[in-house]
């Protein structure tokens, strides 16, 4: 989403979000992330206005105090920015790619099943399986911090079974043009 993103030309404008809409977004974020309301309140205080930064191709970035905290494509899920995920790593379920896949991820590729199912990868056990179309934190073999945020294209059990094609679609990754933007 942010492989080639130039703020000066790809941003259409900043608009403060109406209070009623903010309330709705907050409820959605609370249901989509595994986050306590008080922690979300610390990240995004109710008295602090949320700003909608409208971008090209139906991408929306939301900022608090001009710091991007999450983004959305069309009316899809609210993806936390990678910097926010680094601060609160537990808010999304975790998958891991092996070391060989890291450089592909950093070039903006989606994550193929074999990179997730190999010895260096990690998918949760069957009893904690993640369904398809869920946001996940993408971790990497031997690294402490997440390297990307994505969405599952198959359930994690199917990734193990099918072990072919894209398992996780990358939404943002370390070093993309969203990473470069610290304030908007």
């Amino acid at each position, binding site marked *: 989403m942010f492989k080639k993103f130039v703020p000066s030309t790809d941003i259409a404008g900043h608009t403060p979000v109406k209070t009623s809409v903010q309330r709705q977004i907050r409820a959605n974020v609370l249901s989509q992330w595994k986050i*306590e309301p*008080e*922690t979300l*309140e*610390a990240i995004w205080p109710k008295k602090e206005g949320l700003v909608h930064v409208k971008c090209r191709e139906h991408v929306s970035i939301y900022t608090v105090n001009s710091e991007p905290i999450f983004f959305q494509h069309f009316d899809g899920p609210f993806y936390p920015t990678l910097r926010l995920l*680094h*601060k*609160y*790593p537990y808010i999304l379920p975790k998958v891991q790619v*092996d*070391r*060989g896949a*890291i*450089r592909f991820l*950093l070039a903006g590729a989606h994550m193929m099943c074999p990179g997730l199912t*190999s*010895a*260096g990868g990690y998918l949760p056990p069957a009893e904690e399986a993640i369904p398809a179309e869920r946001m996940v934190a993408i971790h990497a*073999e*031997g*690294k*402490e*911090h997440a*390297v990307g945020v994505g969405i599952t294209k198959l359930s994690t059990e199917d990734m193990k079974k099918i072990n072919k094609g894209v398992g996780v679609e990358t939404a943002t990754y*370390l*070093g993309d043009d969203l*990473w*470069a933007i610290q304030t908007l």
Partner: protein
Amino acid sequence: MGRKRAQSPPRQAAPTEDEGAGSSSQQPVEPPKEPTPPVRVIYCDVCSFPLEYCEFGSSFTRCKESLKESNEELYNKYYSDEALQSKIGTLSLEAQKKLEKDAAKKEAKAEAKADAALKKKLASQVTIKRIERTKRKHVTAIHGLEAFSIDLKKAAKQLAGRFATGASVTKNAQGLDEIVVQGDVSDEILEILEKGEGVLKGVPIDNVQVVEDKKKKTEG
């Protein structure tokens, strides 16, 4: 405008999660929970990645050097022989070699690119052109500033404010952006560039040229 929740019945039956467990005997108010403190990730001063990812960036050598200088302890955490051994993980030796080779290539490429950009910058010219409109009236056109990463709109605004006159960014005949300031202010602009005032900084004065564009031949 606090809603008086305690007195009025709840407006919507919001299903709270702890309701399911015990139905009637609930303590009404729990002590407010503390937010979870954020994890502090240390980012690289050079490439902005978390330190452990520097090896995948395009400035690995510089990242390492900078960390060694600024924080020996962290440097050892990531680059001691042991750390290097363990990070290879499940990757085969061959794949690791390839990865290192790729990283070196990427780095060389990034350096070459930065070098070329610098050269280009040093070679680009800025011209300040005094253009005669009528016998008495002039405008001053400046172009080439964008090569020195100067925001033209901001620069025009600064100049307009400075000379209390009009200044705008327009495209010239060649389709290149230039700043046009009303009045003859070429000497003043040269001086501003020399001092590097406001956003108009970073232009080596040797790269600046002042030219005149007259309608008629210079009068004797």
